[in-house]
């Protein structure tokens, strides 16, 4: 009985983790950026979505869309106001760009967190579920919203797979992750590809933020933890490897759910952290990463 409960609950949270981490690994794979404002983007999407759905009375669906839009805008801000200026700056030595991008996005994340806390207070909010009601899966009481979240996550992941593997623009995206210089030599505009990647990233992170708000609730104080969990999932799966991230999301999601149910809810994040340390020491490239 409890095992079934864990299976069902863990699946929903893992799907959300997968969606959240997917965008993070995508921009790392294509443009080599680790965006530490990631959690901030999710929080912005969640709060704006909640505000327009509830307080402005626009309804859950329109609110979700506005939330995703807010996520995309925030992603653009982090790219155009922080990441790109640092990458293009002449005053920053080339080998230190990575460190500066990390510090810069970290600062932006803090600004987002505090700015949002100022506008909306730091109380956690919960969005009304997309679909209300409860059903039973093999005898486990499950909110329909939870099933819905898993379905949406996998639909989006499927769409992304189609985009990357089956369309021309998606293939150029894949090529950019392998050899950006070669791509520019073939006459592709690299900046346009980066713009596309950051748009996709904004949509993914925004959607994950809104769905998280309707599932567990989101507060501005979660921003750092959301970044950390995306970061660790992505490292666990192998930096830049999409399928690795998906597997890692399920490993972390289930590990946390099992700990919460079987041991104690307070110890929830610990086994995943220990696993992360072991993996980084034994196999630094992650589960499916390239070296």
């Amino acid at each position, binding site marked *: 009985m409890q095992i079934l409960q864990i299976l069902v609950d863990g699946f929903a949270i893992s799907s959300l983790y997968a969606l959240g981490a997917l965008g993070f690994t995508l921009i790392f794979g294509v443009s080599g950026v680790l965006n530490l404002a990631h959690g901030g983007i999710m929080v912005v999407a969640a709060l704006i979505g909640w505000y327009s759905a509830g307080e402005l009375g626009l309804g859950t669906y329109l609110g979700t869309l506005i939330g995703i839009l807010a996520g995309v805008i925030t992603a653009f801000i982090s790219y155009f106001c922080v990441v790109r200026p640092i990458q293009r700056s002449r005053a920053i030595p080339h080998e230190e760009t990575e460190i500066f991008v990390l510090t810069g996005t970290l600062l932006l994340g803090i600004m987002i967190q505090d700015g949002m806390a100022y506008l909306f207070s730091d109380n956690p909010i919960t969005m009304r579920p997309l679909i209300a009601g409860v059903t039973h899966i093999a005898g486990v009481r499950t909110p329909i919203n939870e099933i819905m979240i898993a379905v949406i996550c996998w639909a989006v992941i499927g769409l992304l797979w189609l985009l990357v593997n089956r369309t021309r623009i998606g293939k150029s995206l894949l090529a950019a992750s392998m050899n950006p210089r070669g791509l520019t030599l073939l006459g592709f505009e690299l900046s346009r590809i980066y713009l596309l990647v950051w748009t996709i990233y904004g949509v993914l992170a925004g959607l994950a933020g809104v769905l998280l708000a309707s599932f567990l609730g989101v507060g501005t104080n979660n921003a750092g933890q959301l970044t950390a969990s995306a970061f*660790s999932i992505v490292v666990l799966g192998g930096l830049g490897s999409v399928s690795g991230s998906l597997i890692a999301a399920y490993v972390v999601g289930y590990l946390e759910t099992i700990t919460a149910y079987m041991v104690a809810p307070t110890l929830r994040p610990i086994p995943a952290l220990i696993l992360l340390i072991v993996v980084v020491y034994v196999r630094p490239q992650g589960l499916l990463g390239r070296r």
Partner: protein
Amino acid sequence: MKKVFGSPVFWFAVVAILVLALLPLWVSGYILGILTVAYYYGVFSMAWDLLFGFAGEVNFGPTFLIGLGAYTAALMNNAGIGIPFCMIGGTFVALVGGLLLAVPALRLRGPYFGLITLVAVLLLQNAIVIFARFTGGEIGMTVADVLSIDTNVNYWYALGFMVVCGVILFGLSRSALGLILQASGQDSIEAQALGFNVVKHKLAAFCISAIFSGLTGTMLVFYMGATSVDTIIDISIGVQIIIAAVLGGRRTILGGAIGAIFLIVATEFLRPLGQLNTFVVSGVALLVILFFPDGMLGYLLRKGERG
């Protein structure tokens, strides 16, 4: 030696320290309290810069080392041991913890090293909450002894401590160790080809950083008379230390102290803004990174070289 005494930077530093040392004659205890904390943060930032600016390793977890030192000292003190031994004990545990963390982690490069240090902070934070029976958990714990109950004395302790640490760290950064670290941070393959043991030097830098962070952590505990996760270990504290070092100027050591004092005083000045003060301070730090990536001291030094 002649070069040191002849340089304007040296005399500027001497005058600045003298003015700071005489501050208790003019300003209120409230301001002194803020500056006392700022000086301890200055040492954290300087110790962090040795690792980042010189060895090129981003340590996201300076508070792991600080927390180990602080909590060890607090636990020892509550067991009835005197302050000096608590400080030695805390520093020692921070060093051992740093070694356990660094020996395997330094084999990793770039983001992986940063991640491991970040995870170390999260684990320490969780461990303190789990063993709440001994550590006071999220509420924190008080210590039996304090350095002094006099604001002025505490202020001078902190200033003196920062100056001594600054001199030692600055000297180290200008020594052979500092040069080799800088070389291995910029091109570790070439440094290795020149016959330097890069890992050994980076390990030494990490140990020095751990010793100073741990020792300062114990000082901070005996100044505040209490320790808690939110004031010592939380990731936001680590971020402040990092911002201060980058703001003051990386690869300058002394910039860390300047950055920390600026950051803490600015946060205090902006307190009327309420919740927005962290927002503004991070914004300013971001602008500095974007437009003056060398930081305040780095910018001045570079300008001096040109002019």
